[in-house]
């Protein structure tokens, strides 16, 4: 496992060099996008997979981060050292407010109320005419990191995102093995019992929700910087659903679940849309416009035959120890 991880990281470091050499610079940018979604999905996995909270509004935090950082760039504050922390803070605040209310409910009500909050924010940014409204906001440039790193370069951007992703994964690893992580997982397993051994369930869930929201906000800031564009769809419920699908595909409550899910889902979408399969096109000429059908079939197969997701297929079954 340790060896596989080492080679995977080595491969990720070598990837842009290899692609540049082969002349496929597009794939460097594509990989950045995958990694940004991996951060977003991983942050949702903390809430959904480890915490057992079925949040259907995670796009709200990704979107809040994306908009706050973009508005700062549009207003001339280009430094990532201001924009990204601001995105994190804004998303954390949003998560605090939404979580404080939503976490008083359980089950399907929690799903619905998180969805409702996210949709409210979706309509809010839709109405922000000063910042593009429903047409979105185009940025003059990406955020600036300084330190001699030019984020306008796809390769530099790639390495920045890679570093943040690895940091996020390491932080998640530490978190789920800490005292706090044990409590959060125990709440997923049996919330009533956690309260009965003397731990305030609500408070732990709320802090978990805020941490995940903050990380989602960082992913949003990266996403906006990557495309130099943000529009309200980043907060749409479909986006929340996409993140959920990534987590379920990759592995609910697995460290690598979000990463695998993002890679598989975006990879699959790209494959179906950009590589026309001749024999399939003969039967169904416009099948490429319905890439979601293929994704749906894969998701169905995963849920039916590998409820632990793709990560669960690789690692063997064991106790609920992360």
């Amino acid at each position, binding site marked *: 496992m340790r060896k596989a991880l080492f080679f995977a990281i080595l491969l990720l470091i070598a990837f842009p060099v290899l692609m540049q050499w082969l002349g496929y610079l597009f794939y460097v940018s594509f990989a950045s996008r995958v990694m940004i979604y991996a951060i977003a999905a991983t942050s949702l996995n903390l809430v959904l997979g480890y915490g057992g909270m079925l949040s259907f509004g995670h796009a709200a935090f990704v979107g809040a981060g994306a908009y706050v950082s973009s508005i700062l760039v549009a207003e001339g504050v280009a430094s990532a050292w201001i924009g990204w922390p601001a995105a994190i803070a804004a998303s954390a605040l949003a998560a605090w407010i939404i979580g404080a209310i939503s976490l008083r409910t359980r089950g399907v009500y929690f799903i619905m109320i998180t969805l409702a909050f996210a949709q409210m924010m979706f309509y809010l940014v839709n109405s922000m005419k000063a910042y593009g409204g429903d047409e979105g906001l185009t940025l003059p440039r990406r955020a600036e990191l300084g330190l001699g790193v030019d984020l306008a370069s796809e390769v530099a951007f790639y390495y920045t995102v890679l570093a943040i992703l690895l940091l996020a994964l390491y932080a998640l690893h530490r978190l789920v093995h800490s*005292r706090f992580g*044990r409590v959060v997982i125990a709440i997923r397993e049996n919330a009533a019992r*956690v309260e009965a051994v003397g731990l305030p369930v609500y408070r732990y869930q709320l802090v978990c929700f805020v941490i995940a929201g903050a990380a989602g906000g960082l992913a949003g800031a990266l996403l906006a910087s990557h495309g130099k564009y943000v529009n309200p769809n980043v907060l749409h419920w479909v986006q929340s659903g996409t993140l959920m699908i990534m987590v379920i595909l990759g592995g609910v409550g697995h460290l690598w679940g979000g990463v695998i899910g993002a890679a598989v889902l975006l990879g699959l979408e790209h494959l179906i849309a950009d590589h026309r399969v001749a024999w399939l096109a003969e039967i169904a000429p416009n099948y490429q416009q319905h890439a979601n059908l293929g994704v749906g079939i894969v998701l169905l197969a995963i849920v039916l035959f590998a409820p632990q997701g793709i990560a669960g297929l690789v690692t063997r079954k064991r106790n609920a120890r992360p």
Partner: protein
Amino acid sequence: MLALRNVSKRFGGVVATDDVSLAVARGEVHALIGPNGAGKTTLIGQISGSLATDAGAILLESADITAWREHQRVKAGLARSYQITSIFRRFSVLDNLALAVQARSGSSFSFWRPVAAESALFEEARTIAREIGLAERLEASAGTLAHGEQRALEVGLALATRPKLVLLDEPMAGMGPEESHRMIALIGRIRASVAVLLVEHDMDAVFRLADRITVLVNGRVIATGKPEAIRADPEVRRAYLGDELAA
């Protein structure tokens, strides 16, 4: 130690507990008996704080805890076990107990340091596992334990919070004679350091363990006293013990 003053709880039109007063003294095993549906588990819920109390007052060491949240009561030394086993089924036995130990020792808002590095937590968890007879099963998933072992873990989770008073809701439910004997022995050992409020249908266990007994029928206390007095009480015999003793 614990005092209930005129405590009541109703669910809609149904009165579950009705004007219940009782006291558990320090170092006492106090049994709460009564027919099914008498309100015993409701009362345990009210004392532990998982159910809100409609009327009356609950006092723990003369502090009024009626409005306290459940986790606050646990911190104050009031722990419970459940009639229907409620454990962390996918955690190992050791992790189950370690979590309960963690709950009362230090803050759990610690986000970075691995809990596995805290040997003191696991040392204490092992001690409790020995106490409840699960020392050989530390690494087993709690869900794979035999029924009697799960019941022991259920009580162990309550004891791991180091309570001053423990509420045991039918700890012997569904146990065979040998397992029951082990549970009786366990309660016999802990009574030296912990006051016990014991809900139990096993009258053999009740009369062996209890210092005092309270009988609950239809949500009301019909008798409280020493075991001999309860056994002789005509009203108790008519309402509850009659069938038990005849059996």
